């Protein structure tokens, strides 16, 4: 299983182990963990998603990453539901022979998760809740993968 959308927390080390165990062709493993920040007194974050489309959309991005970089393994977990400050939201693990592929694929997947996967965050504060607005710099980050490779 490459992509999971779940309420439960995850164990990044166990996932990295499952992805790479026994492999002797992997020179680089990049693990990205996204977490809830307690900015401006945030008390919780609630993540809603579009069941069915989410998994399909992420799978399309995984396939695009695998077509673009020689990856030995990819694992993505995205949590939904109510999460408190400091809690893990998202995990992306990429494994490859060389570090450049692993780093670039992890960034690519995070940029597309941010801008294309159908999740929506609502922030809770002491005095109420508000839906998080999309950020222009996330769109810019995703757009860089559409131009020819930089290196």
């Amino acid at each position, binding site marked *: 299983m490459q992509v999971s959308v779940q309420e439960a927390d995850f164990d990044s080390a166990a996932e990295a182990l499952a992805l790479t165990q026994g492999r002797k062709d992997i020179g680089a493993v990049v693990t990205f963990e996204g977490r809830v920040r307690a900015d401006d007194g945030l008390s919780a974050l609630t993540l809603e998603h579009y069941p069915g489309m989410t998994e399909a959309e992420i799978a399309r991005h995984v396939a695009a990453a695998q077509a673009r970089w020689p990856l030995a393994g990819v694992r993505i977990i995205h949590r939904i539901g109510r999460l408190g400050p400091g809690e893990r939201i998202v995990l992306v693990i990429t494994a490859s022979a060389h570090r450049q592929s692993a780093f670039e694929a992890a960034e690519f997947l995070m940029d597309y998760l941010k801008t294309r*996967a159908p999740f929506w965050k609502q922030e809770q504060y002491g005095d109420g809740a508000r839906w998080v607005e999309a950020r222009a710099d996330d769109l810019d980050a995703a757009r860089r993968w559409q131009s020819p490779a930089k290196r």
Partner: protein
Amino acid sequence: MKVLYFAWVREKLGCSEETLNLPPEVRTARQLALHLAARGPSYANVFGALGNLNLAIDQEHASWDQDLGAAQEVAFFPPVTGG
């Protein structure tokens, strides 16, 4: 056709999912939005301006002028904010 609403679209409409029988002149996503806007004040509020709305047709991101064709499921939602 099944129509789904997410995040503040769902909240403003007070509805997450409904099944609609569309008149034959509703052929694109934009025409569907116009059709929905005429259903009442909360729909007019959401679908009156499409600038901050996105949509998916059969679980794939789509554009307003895309043909609905034989779509089974259309979803309306704000720009995504996961990750």
